Every structure is written in C-alpha cells, then in structure tokens.
C-alpha cells in the first residue's frame, strides 16, 4: 500500500505531467467556446417536435371569425376610450365588460417598493369555469394594460375581452380559463402570480378573492397597434433564465405556421434566413437574455412557479388581422385544454436558434462545463504544486563540482519491483493554509458589500454609487495587495494557494450554476477565464501592468458599464432594473455577479499585484 502511494506520488511529481494542466485548462476553454460555436450546425442541433401526445396542435377547426370581429371592434373602441384614464377607472369598465360576458370578476391591488420608488397598480381578472370540468386546473390568458415598453396594449386587451366572450360560448373546456388584465407588464403579473400561489407579501400585495385550480399554462398577448401584422414574435425567457417547456413553444409555432400560415420568430430576429450566422445570433441573443435573468414579458413571472408561459407579439406589416391572432390563441387553448397533466414530456433546458430548431441540455452543457472545469483543473494543479519542495539552489559557476553532496535516496518497493529515487521527491512540503483561506474568505464576504449597496440605495443615487464603487474597484487591488505584502509577507506558496482556493470556489459555483442557468455560467466563466493565468509578477512590472489593464477591462463593473453603453442605457437605469429584479422578481443574477464573479476577480487582481517573499528551506 505504501509502495502504491509512493508510486502515485512519484507520478504526481513527474515534471512532464506537471507541465500538462495549464495547457489542459486552456484547451478546456478553447473547446468549450468552439463547442458552443458548433451548436448551430445541422449536425448538432435538432428540429423541434411535439413530445406530448395529448396536445394535438392544429387539429381543430377554429371558429373565431365573422361576427366576433364586430365584437372585437366594439371592445377596441372601449379600450381606446379608456386610453389614459386611471387604473381604477379602467378596471371599473373592464370589470363591467367581463361581467357582461357572464364571468366572475375579481381585482387585486399591489404595491412594490424598490430602489426608493413605489410601483403600484391594480390587476383585474375574470374566471370562466369549465362547464363540464372539475375546476382543478386552469389556463391563463393575459393581456397587460401596458406592455413591456409601457405602450397601451389596445388590440391585446380588446382581444382578451373578445376571446373571453367567445370562449364562454364553448362547452368543451376541461380546465377553467382565467382572463387577466394586469396594470403593467412587470410588477402586475408578479403580484398576481405570487398571490395566486399564496407567496405574496400582504398587505402590500392583496390576496386574491377568487381562485381556480392549478395553473397549467399561460399565454400573453402583447398587441399594441391597430394595423395588420406579418408574423408572430414569441418571447419565452423566464426569470433567472428558466424556460417554459419546449412543447408549449412548439405548439404555438406549429399552430401559427402550420395551421394559420403565420411565421414565428424569436429573440427579435425579424429576419431569419436559416443561415449559420442567423442561427448563432438567435442563440447568442437567447443566451444573453437567459444570462441576464430578467423578465422579458408578463409571462416571465409565471415560469418560476412551474407554469409554462409565453408572450406572443405580432409584428411587421402584413395581411394577418387581429382575428388571425385570435384564432392562434383559440387553437393554442384548445391544445392546452387537451392536456391531461402538466407539460413535462419535452425539454425545460434548451437553446433555440430558430423557431423550429434547438439544442437540448445534453448537447450544450459540456460547453459551459468545460469552461468551469478549467478553473477546477488549475486549482488542483496549484494545490499539488504548492506541496512540491523548493528547487535546490544552484550557485552560479559551480555546475560540475565533485564535492557536491549527492541527494539522499529512498527505496520504493512494490511487489518485487524496487526503485531508488531522491528522497526529496517523496516529501510533501507543509502548506501554510491560514492566510490563503483568510484572504479568499475575506474577499467572498466582501462581495456582500456591492450586493447590498446596489440593492438598497435609492435610484437617483445609483450613478454616483456606481462611480464610487468603480473607483474603489480600481484602487482596492493594489492597495490590498500592498497591505498584504507589508503585513503578512506571503510566500509564493501562499500566493498560489490563494489562487488555488479562489479558482476552486469559482469552478465549483460555475459548474453547478451551469445546470441551472447555463448562459450565465458560460458568460461569467468566459469573462473570468484570464484569472486562471494570473500570478504575482514582481520582476516584470510592465507585463503586470498590461495584465492589470486587461483584467480591469474584464471586471464586473467595466462589463456592466460597457453593456449599458452598448444598449444605450444609462448605468442608473440598468442598476434600477437590477434592483427591481431583485426586489420584485426574485432575480439572482446579482448574487452571481457580486458574490461569485467579483470576489474571484478581486483575488486574481490582488495576487497579480503580489510580491512573494523569498523562501528559504527550513
């Protein structure tokens, strides 16, 4: 046994083997990125297909037409007339209209506070009880009064009203149908869904007075204009990068394109030529949305409750009218009505590159995993290396001195085989763990600082706070590094242990995050990739300076700022949105950024500025 241990430790010290890990971890990053770029190819992505037998999309005739168009026009006049009225006045009228259709109506007030601002409003909803159903399940049709951009959803709400009246006439519903008109597209749906599942903060958010069964699906209409449209834009990203079951999307796409002849597009790819570039672009946009983890429409709030939901946005100038849109909804609801159990047959983890092309988790996951693995490999390598004895000091000019002592030898025996090796190759140098652990733990805890700061200050302060924090972010690493050097005089071993622990934690977090939010894990992994190769360079200040500049360019703050500039948003707006996400949606992207990414970055930067003490053999 001891022989075996000795041979493995021999293997561990093999200088050839010790050269491999840095190249291996670099290879991991390269393969990880290349893998992602391969996904849009035909060989790696698949065409979508319906997995749930019960759905039967597009197998029914739709009858939403004819006189219903007149009803729709009437409702649209009502909605237009309400235009800029107050929320309560609007709901009074909508309630009246729903009641006239013979539905049970209820309202819900809500009030959220985030970043010093108050978001309040009132939702109204009506329940159509399934005439022959058992009221244990329900599907939701949502039309927010104002869409994500704050524009009046005039055709959308009118369509919800018309469909409510139309659905009431059918007797074939097996599930209740809830028609929900929220005051806005961001806070309102969240308040309603929270209250529906009794997880809301009362009294700020009112409880629902009327409820139905378990929600099986939700479809949102975002149709703010009057003219005819060309195609459907389907928005499917949920909060924290969660996605609805792929079957729901497939159903809508199958119905829209197969039954109604309406094209479907994703991720604002208004033109999609099915080329590699377009597929890649769609996929990357999807990944970015998933990585940001924000709500992309009223449907997003439903998804964390395992209610599959999507938003349908008509766009373009074409010849499809609001009745065609209504028929898409009708057919989709007939399909959802066919469901016998929750959507579960198809994928919940996927990347879409076209309305009918996707890759599933099994195909794309290795990409983020490889990037995360690179940190872990390097961490293990550094740990092994930190235990290696110091190289013997060779004095200049005494290369072949005969009086030099031969190194002490040790005998290793395994079975009949024996080997004689220098004793020092078997020795493990004692690792001084306290300082590295303290530094890594300290920087992890420091992450709470920006997390608290950016979620608990009022909105007008955000630009100032951000500038302040960026300044701190620039000055802190050299300062902390100097403090560390002067106070504790860390050795090179301690520096490599600091790096090892920091990378280990990063690798650990990212590989687990990859299964939950692939895109975020991949993006953070990519931005932190240079951290793998940062080490103290006391004798090469110029290279250290260049590297520091590079690392600063990839700092969370810089990336945040560059992102805001790229999309033409003020940094204040971005932070306000993030705080809103944190307070209302329960978004946890910030936690990953400030408590995983930023500490790793800080530790990397500190060790780059480090000056290890000369080590002497004891």
């Amino acid at each position: 046994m001891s022989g075996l241990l000795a041979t493995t430790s021999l293997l561990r010290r093999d200088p050839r083997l010790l050269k491999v890990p840095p190249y291996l971890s670099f290879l991991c990053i390269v393969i990880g990125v290349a893998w992602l770029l391969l996904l849009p190819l035909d060989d790696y992505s698949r065409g979508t297909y319906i997995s749930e037998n019960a759905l039967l999309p597009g197998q029914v005739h739709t009858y939403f037409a004819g006189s219903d168009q007149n009803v729709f026009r009437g409702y649209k006049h009502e909605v237009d007339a309400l235009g800029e009225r107050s929320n309560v006045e609007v709901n009074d009228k909508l309630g009246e209209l729903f009641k006239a259709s013979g539905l049970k109506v209820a309202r819900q007030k809500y009030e959220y506070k985030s970043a010093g601002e108050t978001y309040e409003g009132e939702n109204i909803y009506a329940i159509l009880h399934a005439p022959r159903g058992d009221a244990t399940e329900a599907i939701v049709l949502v039309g927010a009064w104002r869409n994500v951009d704050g524009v009046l959803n005039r055709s959308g709400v009118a369509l919800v009203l018309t469909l409510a009246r139309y659905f009431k006439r059918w007797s074939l519903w097996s599930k209740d149908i809830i028609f929900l008109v929220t005051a806005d597209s961001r806070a309102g749906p969240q308040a309603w869904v929270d209250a529906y599942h009794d997880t809301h903060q009362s009294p700020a958010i009112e409880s629902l007075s009327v409820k139905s069964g378990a929600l099986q699906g939700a479809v949102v209409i975002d149709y703010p204009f009057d003219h005819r449209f060309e195609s459907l834009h389907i928005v499917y990203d949920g909060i924290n990068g969660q996605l609805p079951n792929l079957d729901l999307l497939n159903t809508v796409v199958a119905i829209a394109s197969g039954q109604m002849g309406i094209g479907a597009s994703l991720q604002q790819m208004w033109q999609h030529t099915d080329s590699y570039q377009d597929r890649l672009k769609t996929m990357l946009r999807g990944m970015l949305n998933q990585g940001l983890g924000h709500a992309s429409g009223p449907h997003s709030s439903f998804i964390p409750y395992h209610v599959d939901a999507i938003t349908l946005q008509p766009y373009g100038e074409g010849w499809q009218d609001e009745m065609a849109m209504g028929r898409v909804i009708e057919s989709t609801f007939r399909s959802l009505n066919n469901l016998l159990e929750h959507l579960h047959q198809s994928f919940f983890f996927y990347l879409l590159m076209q309305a009918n092309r996707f890759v599933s988790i099994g195909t794309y996951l290795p990409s983020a995993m490889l990037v995360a693995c690179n940190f872990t490999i390097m961490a293990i390598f550094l740990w092994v290396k930190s235990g290696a004895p110091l190289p013997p000091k060779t004095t200049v000019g005494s290369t072949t001195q005969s009086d030099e002592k031969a190194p002490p030898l040790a005998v290793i025996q395994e079975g009949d085989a024996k080997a004689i090796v220098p004793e020092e190759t078997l020795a493990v140098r004692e690792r001084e763990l306290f300082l590295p652990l303290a530094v890594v733990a300290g920087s992890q805890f420091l992450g709470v600082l920006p997390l608290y700061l950016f979620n608990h200050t009022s909105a007008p302060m955000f630009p100032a706070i951000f500038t302040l924090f960026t300044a701190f972010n620039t000055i802190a690493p050299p300062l902390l590094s100097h403090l560390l050097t002067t106070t504790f005089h860390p050795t090179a071993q301690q520096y490599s242990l600091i790096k090892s622990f920091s990378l280990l934690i990063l690798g650990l977090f990212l590989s687990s995050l990859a299964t939950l939010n692939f895109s975020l894990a991949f993006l953070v992994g990519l931005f932190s990739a240079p951290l793998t190769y940062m080490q103290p360079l006391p004798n090469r200040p110029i290279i250290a300076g260049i590297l520091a500049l590079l690392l600063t360019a990839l700092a969370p703050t810089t990336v945040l700022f560059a992102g805001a500039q790229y999309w033409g948003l003020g940094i204040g707006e971005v932070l306000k949105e993030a705080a809103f996400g944190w307070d209302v949606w329960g978004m946890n992207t910030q936690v990953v950024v400030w408590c995983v990414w930023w500490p790793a970055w800080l530790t990397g930067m500190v060790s780059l500025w480090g000056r290890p003490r000369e080590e002497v053999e004891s």
Partner: protein
Amino acid sequence: MKLANFLRLPVLLASVLAPIPISAEHTSNWAVLVSTSRFWFNYRHLANVLSLYRTVKRLGIPDSQIILMLPDDMACNPRNAFPGTVYSNADRAVDLYGDNIEVDYRGYEVTVENFIRLLTDRVGEEMPRSKRLLTDDRSNILVYMTGHGGNEFLKFQDAEEISAFDLADAFEQMWEKKRYHELLFMIDTCQANTMYSKFYSPNIIATGSSEIDQSSYSHHADNDVGVAVIDRYTYYNLDFLETQVREPSSKMTLGDLFDSYDESKIHSHPGVRWDLFPGDEQGGRERLVMDFFGNVQNVEVDNAGGNDTEWKEDLLHLGKKIAELRERAEAQDAAVKNNTVPESRGGSHPSRKIRAAKVEIDETWWGKKAVGALALGGCAIVWLAGTYQESA
C-alpha cells in the same frame, strides 16, 4: 329387406356418437372487444372498438354474447364538443354511443388481470354473468384488441401491459378448458403482428394491422372533435364488413376479407396466421366471415357434448332394442325357413360386421406391442453398447 337396412343403424349411430373428432359446426358466437388505452387523445381506439361492436351487433351477436371493454368514457369527456356521442367518422353520420350500448368492463376495470380472467373464466362467484365469457367447445369467438403496442406487448391503460406470451398461454388454457371451437384474433396496434406470433393452440386464425417495427396509423381526424377518430386497419375492415357483408346470410369468406386489405391504403403490412388452423390456409380461407362476426341460428345439435352417461344409456337401450328386434327377426326367419330353404343370408350379415370390428382392434393391439418391445429392446442394446464403449 327394409328390416335388414334398419338393422345397420347401430353401426352408423355408433360412429356419430363416438368421442367426436373436430366437427365443422359451432353453435354459438361470442365477441370480446377490447380497447386498452384511455385519455382523450386516444379517442380513436375507443371509436375502433365501438364501431366493431356496432358491426357484430348488426350481424346478429346479441349483447349478452359480447364482452365490451372500454377503459375511458369519451362520450362524457368534457373536451368532447358533441357531448354524449362517439363518432368514428368525420361525417358524424352514426353515433356509436347512441342508445342501447352495453359496456361490460369500463374504466379501471380494464386490466390485464381482468382480461385474462375473463378469457380463462377464472372468476369469483360474485362475478355477474354479463362479465363472463360463457363459451364452450362449440363456440366461435372473435377477439378484437386495439391500443398502443410494441414488439410482443400491448399496453393496458397507462400502467401495465400484456405480452404475447401471456395471451398465447391464455388461449391455450381456453383450448384445454374447451372454451372455444374456433377463434379469430384481430388486433390493431403498432407492431400488431408480433402479438399473435407466440400462439400455439389449435383452431386459431390471427390477423394484425402491422409488422414488427411498423406503426399502425390513424385514418383521419375530425377537426371539430379535434382528434383522430379511427385507425386505418380497422377502418378498412369495417369498410369491407359494411359494404360486402350486408346481411347474416352473406357467404363472404375470411379469404375475401383478408384479400380486401390494401397495403397502400392501410399504410402498413397486415398479417394473417393460418398455421394453427386445421386445414391451414386453405381451410381457414373457406371459413365464412359470418362464422365469427355473425351469430349462428341454423344449426342446433342438442346432445353434442352432452352428458356422457346419458348417451351410453341410450346406446345400451338401443342395443337391447336391437337384440329384441333380432330375436324377433330370427323367429320370423325360422318361420320362413320352414317354407323356403335358399334364402338364409339376411340374418347373419349385420352380426358379422360387428365381430369384424372387434378383431381389427385386437390385431393392431398385438402389432403395437411387438413394435414397442422391439423399440425398447433396441434402446437397451444401444445403451448397453454405449456404456461398454465408455468403460473400455
């Protein structure tokens, strides 16, 4: 002379009443119609079964002799746009559910266990007669199944499945228990033909909708009901039965039915298995469609398969009667002899025949004994030689 002819009767009677070889006649018709899948999107499977139910009823099998197994109630499903009805055609001309329908096993009663118990009649005393297959060895049975299947299995409901081996064993048990005379097995599911590949009991003709690794497809959907309403194989079977077998007197044969299958229409390769049937394909093809899909009215043989002692007593009685008649005849002959000498053959003729039959049996018995002894001796010699060689 008349009397002499009359005296031959016992010989003829004995040949009729002796333990029967397979007779071509059956006296009752039964149908077991099974859908094995539930849920709204499997509407077509229930429609398949109900269409066949309507057909066999039309051709004369009464409800009391049809076992109908329906695992779900499509008529009352809230998703049904036409409540209380089931249609197997988009023209919705015939409501299959209608009135006058008797479902014997419904909902969760449709299980593999209940199905096999039904076939083999292993049921408790409390089981009502309407849920039992009360057949005997003169009953022809039509077994029709439809649902979702695979290679050598058929799914029941959502939880269990019956394998081809289970089914084959159940049929064998039925045969051993003399529960059928002839059986037509018909199945419409994916890879249906694998389901009858394991059968090994005699007098079965089996047919299925598709070969191994082949799907069975639906025929068409009703866009107002919103689901497919019938499967292709069943549709074309019904098509034949509706158009060609119009009344119970139809002389259409199973050969005609199977020849009507058009693979380009059914979209799969239907199969037929004849080898278990006496007369193989030739014999099977000549069977009338009405032998399985209709009800027999014209043939009634009361005593067939009746009480054993009863007919023996009858025979004994008859023998006595014959002896009595013979004595009387001899007495008459003696009286005639007194008048005319040459005519003396009449009386001896029948008695010789009976004796000859006895001698024949004795002869074969000795022959068989000799052959058996020879065979045994041969085996012993071979064995001895073997052991000798081994020891050497």
